[in-house]
């Protein structure tokens, strides 16, 4: 064995973890001091920490795959794939070599509601790092060669996603939930839509999305305020003032009960389920967060894990919680169980949904949930990468910079009656359910 492979093995995934922890939201005094840095019409959040010579920049532009134009689904994802495939005078290979030669990691991704970018570099190469970032953002090339190559990559990703029972089931679930609304479409698009996209489509979409009025910025590590201002001026000030995307219209999750089944060979049935949830501006938002933690969102401690996994051995993984869409709120969950026991697993989940709505949780259980959620917040701030994710995520939700200080207090303030009120919004008899495997689920 060589030491490097001790490092890489983490990525390779040759280890089996006892459980997959489901992450929830963001922190309190758990968080380090966050500063706001403004330059003209732009704002960035900064956590300055010189203990390591590393800089992490996370950027996001509101407008993700839900903003793909009609008939061009997959366009934002294709744009994201192309944002580090050549810029300025540097074609794709030269640009990638420049990144590699300077130990810079730069990647982009398309969420449903935002296009995101992540940059990581060593502070002593700050200048070249920011020059390459500026090129990527202000002068991407979208060469025909790179466009065609990324189209092929994206098509392969679409096919591969159809091999995963969970992904397949979730794609069907959002179709049931959102119908023709863009949230119902897969972020990678379809084989047909991706094949039809052109370099002109990509450039037009790039010009519509990348602007200053929808830009969010988070910077962590070996940077001070002056350096950050320079970054904002040199890299982002050259973007147009306003984006040109049409707004995504709000949408609610279609009511069930509805179940869909996709037959697939294998011993197990993968089940996903959903209903309307509550959004992060709702007065019960924190109560819902606590309720979800108790029900199905806190890994080994949740009631679903206890009832479905620990007591009965019906599944390895079971969870539920509220999903974060900017223009919708969906409560959803998943379980995978043997074809012979999948129905039983779903029945238990629905029984637990009823129980938490009908019987108030105990003082003790509430207190335990609170110490878990508040204590855990600090764990999301123990590395620069994680801190940057928290900063950008909090901005994406539209929360103020004070959120890091008030979040835990808001959790502490949740009362039993509010947990129950949030639980009463659960509708176990009106779920949307999609199954992939050997067993269709009955919702009677």
């Amino acid at each position, binding site marked *: 064995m060589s030491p490097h492979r001790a*490092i890489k093995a983490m990525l390779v995934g040759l280890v089996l973890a006892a459980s997959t922890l489901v992450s929830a939201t963001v922190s309190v005094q758990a968080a380090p001091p966050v500063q706001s840095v403004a330059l003209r019409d732009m704002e960035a959040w900064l956590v300055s920490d010189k203990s390591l010579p590393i800089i992490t920049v996370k950027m996001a532009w509101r407008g993700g795959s839900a903003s793909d134009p009609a008939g061009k689904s997959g366009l934002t994802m294709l744009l994201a794939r192309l944002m580090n495939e050549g810029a300025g005078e540097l074609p794709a290979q030269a640009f990638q070599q*420049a990144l590699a030669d300077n130990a810079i990691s730069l990647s982009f991704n398309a969420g449903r509601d935002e296009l995101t970018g992540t940059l990581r570099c060593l502070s*002593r*190469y700050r200048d070249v790092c920011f020059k390459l970032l500026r090129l990527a953002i202000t002068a991407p090339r979208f060469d025909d060669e790179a466009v065609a190559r990324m189209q092929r990559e994206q098509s392969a990703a679409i096919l591969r996603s159809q091999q995963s029972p969970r992904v397949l089931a979730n794609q069907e679930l959002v179709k049931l939930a959102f119908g023709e609304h863009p949230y119902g479409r897969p972020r990678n698009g379809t084989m047909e839509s991706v094949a039809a996209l052109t370099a002109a489509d990509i450039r037009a979409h790039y010009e519509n999305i990348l602007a200053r009025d929808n830009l969010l910025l988070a910077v962590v590590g070996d940077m001070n305020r002056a350096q950050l201002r320079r970054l904002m001026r040199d890299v982002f000030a050259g973007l147009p003032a306003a984006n040109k995307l049409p707004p995504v219209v709000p949408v609610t999750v279609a009511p069930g009960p509805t179940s869909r089944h996709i037959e697939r*060979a294998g011993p197990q049935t993968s089940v996903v389920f959903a209903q309307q949830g509550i959004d992060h501006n709702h007065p019960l938002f924190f109560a819902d967060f606590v309720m979800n933690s108790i029900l199905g969102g806190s890994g*080994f401690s949740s009631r679903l894990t206890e009832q479905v996994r620990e007591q009965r051995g019906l599944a390895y993984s079971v969870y539920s919680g509220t999903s974060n869409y900017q223009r919708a709120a969906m409560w959803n969950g998943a379980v995978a169980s*043997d074809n012979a026991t999948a129905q039983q697993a779903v029945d238990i989940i629905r029984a637990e949904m009823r129980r938490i709505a009908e019987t108030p949780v105990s003082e003790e259980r509430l207190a335990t949930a609170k110490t878990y959620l508040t204590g855990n917040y600090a764990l999301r701030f123990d590395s620069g990468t994680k801190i940057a994710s928290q900063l950008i995520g909090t901005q994406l939700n539209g929360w103020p910079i004070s959120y890091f200080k008030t979040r835990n207090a808001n959790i502490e303030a949740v009362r039993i009656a509010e947990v129950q009120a949030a639980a009463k919004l659960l509708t176990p008899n009106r779920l949307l359910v999609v199954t992939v495997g050997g067993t269709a689920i009955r919702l009677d």
Partner: protein
Amino acid sequence: MTLMRLKKSNPIIAVLAAGSLLAACSRGPEGPKVETARLDNGLEIIVIPDFRADVVTHMLWYRVGSADEPKGKSGIAHFFEHLMFRGTENIPSGDFSKTVARLGGQDNAFTSYDYTAYFQRIAKDKLGKMMEMEAERMQKLIIQPDIVAVERDVILEERSMRVDGRPAALLNEQIRKRLHAGTPYEVPVIGWRKEIAQLNAADAGAFYQRYYAPDNAVLVVAGAVTLDEVKGLAETHYGPLKPSGQPRAPRQVAVQLSVTDYDKPEVLSDARVRQRSWLRLYRLPQYQRDAKRQFAAADVLAEVLGGGLTGRLYQALVVESQVAVGTGAYSDTSRLDNGEFIIYATPAEGTDFAKLASAVNTEIERVKNAPVTEEELRRAKRQLVSDLVFARDSQQSMANIFGRAAMLGLSPDDVLGWVDEIEAVTQDDVRDAARALLVEAHAITGHLASEGNTSEGNK
């Protein structure tokens, strides 16, 4: 086939000065501080101080993994790891994780071929409590047959989810079964389904007695603590545990690396497959300290061939000939016994497996026959070393790196010294490593195909 290699002519591209990266991750004042100690009962301690946040990662690593399992009991190491959460004299079943959560922490565990590790991430002031609980389950676990039966079902569900429902995972199992035939690595970590179904409380008890003792474990703590603090707490909680005096037994290692029927690909054809894929696993010799130059060269070789978008395979297969839509390579040498060098590719629509293999073989021949360029060598080294620099950002990554190394018999100094070994690799070393390690007769090639369509492109 020739590769277009663009010259770096753009003035903005400042190339990193040699050595600047090194300082941030090697032995020296700018490198990470990693301290060690040892208790009288044999428990080794590794501490990686990081005071950026008031939290710690507490890990206990055991020198036992699936490769140490008795014949016919495959899966017991991983199964046993699950049972460690299922009740001790003072902690009822399920309460271990609930207690960690109640204290605001997270916990989990993982099992591999050569080790099993348990960890909690939590506020620094709870470190003593974590040690108390971890020490308790090292020697006071209660194995109850009814709970064993339930947990066995959980593990069968885990196997269904990870392997039996995923054709690509099934193919990997079949390839390794042939590649490592006659050695413990022929068995998957999670175990064969039929054998998992037969595991029982007696098997678990025997496994526990044999391997769970302080002299077979390494304590790793990363985060807001000093070595003295960790040592004090460890004396209190782990100090009283009795050593077993039984280190794990040496295992069967393949010295002769040739594989039976190496020229017959392992084919898995399944209706669930929508995107075909191709891969090849080469069996590597066991790591030896006097061969570390070759192993460092293997890391560089993997980077030159398969390191991201600038690697030779990507340029040749995806950019130029377009026989593939994705490809890469890496050397998995974090093994006690035989490691693997892995090359994979996703064939383009209409490209058959033979054509793809031939394109890969061309690149392998090329790297065997001519030295890599200075520029490729420099880039590969920089990528490898920067991985280690960036790992310093995460206390959990640091704990994982040094803990895993300890399981493989490597000290923190060995890990940091690896940087110097990488820097010392020459162009000829890379060519020699390719000649020595990428031997056709040492490898199994796998084809993942759509049912009824084993070679041609699919849509």
